[in-house]
């Protein structure tokens, strides 16, 4: 099992190098090598170190965050169809971001506002599902889905009231796009911390996946564990959404693909999700930057176009 993690790490490295090598401007391998050694031309050094590397890292972190958040949500809700956005978190983030854009705030405030919106959505669903105390995964799911529908209506309302010249920015934000990432570091840091926090809990999650009663019978403090997962998954999703808008699909498909290949041991699935989610988004973003270069595509289109056939193939091949 460690072998698969090692293999994923190698692929992640290759994907990152690919992302550094490919772009609207062609940099031949010899020149890339020179740049890596610190000897390349000024333009190429700027392209590689200041544009491509931060963007590749941001893509990796975002993909990793979304995939881990998806894996956590699926275990939390014991529902393989859950994704990081199922509980309306991206809706809250989108409302925050769109309101900031509507009032003409700068990039930093848009990010801050998106994060605040995501956390507000988290607390709202938490409070509503908690309500009278009889709390179950299905109740959380229902609350989240209904609240998500509410956010959707608010988003439509904002879009309807927005002057048209502001719409492209908003629509691209809603589609999700790595070009929004200002810096990859907060996302990478959150991803690393999350993995550090979640790994000791991973076996608990394996047990929780068998149902809350079974988990409690095997010594898991179910309620505190479930809230920890919920808050952690929310934090991861909020960070991802804040970094690159709401990129769909990664959080749903990556953990599933891995389960089909690696089984459902969270001690493997969680770190593997971080790596595979990162790889998927780095590759997708590299394609989005280059398919019709110098024009750019939204990365969400590519994640879906890459992910759907891969997933269907694995599903078809599995037992």
């Amino acid at each position, binding site marked *: 099992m460690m072998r698969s993690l090692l293999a994923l790490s190698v692929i992640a490295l290759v994907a990152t190098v690919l992302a550094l090598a490919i772009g*609207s401007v062609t940099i031949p391998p010899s020149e890339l090598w020179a740049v890596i050694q610190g000897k390349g031309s000024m333009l190429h050094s700027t*392209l590689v170190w200041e544009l491509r590397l931060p963007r590749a890292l941001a893509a990796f972190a975002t993909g990793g965050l979304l995939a881990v958040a998806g894996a956590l949500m699926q275990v939390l809700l014991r529902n393989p169809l859950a994704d990081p956005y199922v509980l309306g978190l991206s809706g809250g983030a989108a409302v925050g971001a769109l309101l900031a854009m509507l009032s003409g705030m700068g*990039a930093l405030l848009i990010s801050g506002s998106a994060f605040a919106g995501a956390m507000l959505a988290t607390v709202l669903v938490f409070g509503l599902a908690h309500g009278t105390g009889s709390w179950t995964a299905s109740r959380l799911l229902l609350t989240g889905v209904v609240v998500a529908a509410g956010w959707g209506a608010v988003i439509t309302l904002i879009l309807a009231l927005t002057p048209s010249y502001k719409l492209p920015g908003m629509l691209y934000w809603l589609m999700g796009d790595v070009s929004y990432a200002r810096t990859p570091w907060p996302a990478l840091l959150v991803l690393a911390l999350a993995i550090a926090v979640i790994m000791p809990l991973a076996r608990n999650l394996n047990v929780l996946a068998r149902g809350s009663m079974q988990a409690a019978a095997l010594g898991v403090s179910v309620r505190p564990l479930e809230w920890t997962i919920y808050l952690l998954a929310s934090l991861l999703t909020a960070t991802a959404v804040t970094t690159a808008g709401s990129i769909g699909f990664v959080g749903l498909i990556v953990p599933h693909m891995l389960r089909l290949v690696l089984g459902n041991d969270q001690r493997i699935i969680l770190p593997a999700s971080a790596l595979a989610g990162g790889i998927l988004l780095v590759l997708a973003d590299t394609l989005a930057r280059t398919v019709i270069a*110098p024009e*750019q595509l939204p990365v969400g289109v590519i994640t879906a176009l890459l992910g759907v056939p891969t997933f269907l193939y694995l599903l078809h091949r599995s037992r």
Partner: protein
Amino acid sequence: MRSRWLSLKITLGLLLGVLAHPLAASETQRCAVDDAGKQLCLTAAAQRIATLSPGATELTFAAGAGDQVIAGVNYSDYPPAARKLPLVGNHTRIDVEALLALKPDLIVTWVTGNPPAQMELLQELGLPIFAIEPRTFDGVSSAIERISTLAGTETEGFAEAERFRTDIAVFSEQYRHAEPISVFYQVWETPLMTINNEHLIGKVLQLCGGVNVFADMPRLVPRISPEVVLEADPEVILTGSVEGARDVQLDHWKSYPKMRAVANNNLFYVPASPISRPTPRLLEASRDICQKLDIARDR
């Protein structure tokens, strides 16, 4: 065959042009062909004109028919008198009831800006629709002339159209030999968007001797990668500044101090509203941009 068709077309065009000309038009029929290619004939000069986009409002005022305009939409804010107009919604969603209540006898619309379904509805209700969308400097003059024909304000309209033509020609002459200077025009920061030379902004850049680094992109408003901007290393970077907001949209380029535009401090903001509307205010915008390019040339 082809040439026969062509000549037929030209003949027809001339004929229409003659018809549309005020001197040739009969007193009872005022006709003009709109930018969607449809001919509209009015039996009398329009007295109640509804304008369904900020650009349409502005052009109708420029045609000397400001007093006859009875409705605008959100952001119909120029000239200042237009701000007092009753509004019939947003240009993407027209309040048809409010529009009908105002009993317009001419509706000036935007070819690609208004929702087609609503426009069809207005058509079915028998309302006279005149769709405009100038794509060239001459298109601006021509739109003003045609609107003035329909509004019966030919004197003012044709004068204004001619003034615009002349002023543009003067600029063009003035900058004909100006030293070419490469320019990147940033329409939007994230995602990064620009314009090609088909776009009126691209035409303004050309007018001022600017060389748009994305002149030949296939799409009018392409979304591009910052990489290609760095590679093109333009001498000047321009963007529109929105009224009432701080100008920060170009700050992100400052992290590349070695770019020529950044090193020479050639990051410029021009007021967004005149340059984004195909109206006579393009002159202001051209003056602004030409001036900025001159500053850059002197550095």
